[in-house]
């Protein structure tokens, strides 16, 4: 209780301030002390904003879990939930122990950080607390990158292997790439940011990295039984709970209001434009994906429309702080078109990505990064575009490459995929001896 009393005392103090000077405020009020006090309040506001934004981004875990589970079969729903729970739990600890230091620790090479493991930069409750606030915000980002994969590998991956994967992503793959683009936000200093790479909230750093890992996972695993017919025809394996997937998309959209504007880590007026851009891009993505699906399939497709929203959101993530609202609409609109074409194409390539993670996060992440250069408010140049493209390629090479190796190694050692029979019965039963919907008769 003591601590709480202190805080409250402080609160009361503030409440009564202006009418009387509190007893323990013996320092004389001066112009300088006032200036310091103002800055302290702004600092407090920055903490409050950054941490609320982190909470919103955390909530995206629930959104991902719902989208992925809704778009897959009832017999895999427990497993999806477990994967989303565990990649966040594993990811938090991995990022605490290793990832954060690699990403934001001091570096001489520009390739990865070598300090700040285990939050060692924190000097206790009386020291600077920013590293904790910043860690919290970055931790939920790392977990987002990790969780993107779980949809693409759904319904057929061994649970143990997924745990290994999510540890490695949060401890190594994501942070190392992250250090290249964002290291200098704390103590690091990456080669990519040195070139002026624009990726404000992570179209590439978070989404493409996650998306390309997802691609590697889906390729190494192979498709779910029945996804492609004997003559190579693409078959639909419809998701078991479309309303749940839709609510998941709404939650993700909400979370993005933390993801993008929260990336300012500053509570100031600049967040307004980022909010508006985020919202308009998502709206435009819905419209274009729905329209294109309507043209292509004769009906406005709900799965595609939902993916359109996510496509718009991923697309605006890189440029949300440096494009105009009108540009955001264009960026989101194009993202919505890209996602539809990409989903269909990936199916045709006989890669089985049950929820469209590769298209939404990988492909639209790349688009968003390029668009951030193209539509840059300050104008675009060949140099800017070159850097953006370098970033996009670097993300693909690094994330796809390392994840491919990782999945291959897991496959060869502990095994990556459940048996055919287990897959037919459902991964829930095989891996967790459980059913998701015990009072309902479930088909499929």
């Amino acid at each position: 209780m003591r601590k709480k009393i202190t805080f409250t005392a402080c609160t009361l103090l503030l409440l009564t301030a202006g009418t009387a000077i509190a007893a323990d405020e013996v320092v004389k009020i001066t112009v300088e002390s006032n200036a310091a006090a103002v800055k302290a309040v702004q600092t407090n506001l920055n903490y409050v904003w950054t941490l609320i934004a982190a909470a919103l981004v955390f909530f995206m875990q629930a959104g991902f879990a719902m989208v992925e589970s809704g778009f897959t079969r009832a017999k895999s729903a427990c497993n999806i939930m477990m994967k989303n729970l565990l990649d966040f739990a594993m990811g938090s600890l991995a990022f605490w122990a290793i990832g954060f230091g690699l990403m934001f620790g001091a570096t001489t090479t520009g390739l990865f950080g070598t300090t700040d493991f285990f939050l060692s930069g924190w000097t206790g409750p009386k020291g600077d607390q920013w590293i904790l606030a910043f860690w919290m915000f970055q931790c939920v980002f790392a977990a987002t990158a990790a969780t993107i994969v779980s949809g693409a590998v759904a319904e057929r991956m061994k649970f143990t292997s997924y745990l290994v994967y999510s540890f490695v992503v949060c401890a190594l793959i994501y942070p190392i790439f992250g250090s290249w683009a964002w290291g200098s936000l704390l103590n690091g200093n990456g080669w990519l940011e040195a070139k002026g790479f624009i990726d404000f909230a992570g179209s590439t750093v978070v989404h493409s990295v996650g998306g390309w890992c997802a691609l590697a996972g889906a390729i190494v695993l192979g498709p779910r039984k029945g996804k492609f017919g004997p003559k190579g025809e693409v078959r639909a394996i419809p998701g078991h709970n479309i309303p749940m997937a839709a609510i998941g998309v709404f939650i993700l959209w909400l979370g993005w209001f933390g993801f993008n504007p929260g990336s300012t880590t500053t509570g100031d007026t600049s967040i307004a434009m980022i909010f508006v851009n985020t919202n308009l891009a998502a709206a435009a993505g819905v419209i274009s994906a729905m329209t294109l699906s309507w043209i292509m399939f004769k009906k406005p497709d709900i799965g595609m429309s939902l993916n359109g929203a996510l496509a718009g959101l991923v697309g605006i993530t890189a440029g949300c702080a440096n494009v105009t609202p009108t540009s955001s609409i264009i960026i989101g609109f194009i993202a919505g078109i890209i996602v539809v074409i990409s989903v269909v194409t990936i199916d045709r390539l006989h890669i089985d990505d049950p929820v469209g993670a590769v298209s939404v996060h990988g492909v639209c992440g790349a688009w968003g990064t390029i668009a951030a250069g193209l539509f840059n408010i300050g104008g675009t140049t060949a140099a800017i575009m070159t850097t953006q493209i370098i970033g996009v390629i670097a993300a693909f090479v690094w994330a796809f490459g390392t994840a491919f190796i990782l999945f291959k190694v897991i496959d060869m050692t502990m095994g990556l995929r459940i048996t055919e029979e287990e897959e037919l019965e459902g991964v829930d039963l095989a891996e967790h001896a459980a059913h998701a919907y015990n009072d309902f008769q479930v088909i499929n």
Partner: protein
Amino acid sequence: MKKIETIIKPFKLEALKDALHDLNISGMTVSEVKGFGRQKGHTEIYRGAEYMVDFIPKVKVEIIIEEERVESVIEAIINAVRTGKIGDGKIFVLPVEKIIRIRTGETDKEAI
């Protein structure tokens, strides 16, 4: 005693139930089934992949009845559920050898 099995369109169940009530039918059992006959399925779309839904949701109604009432029940069923469109369904009649009411132990006709 006979068992009349009829496979009908789900939204006709209400009408069938009323018709059988009017006949003073003392019991019936309903289950959800899927099937096809002349009426074939339709195409659905899921995230850009079209697929055939072959089986159409139907309702199966089973009525155990005295032999002499079979005809009237069949007639009632046809009147209640027929729309003249494909997919109206079918009626099958099977023999039943014994009936027991669990509560009382009554058998056969008394048990219907």
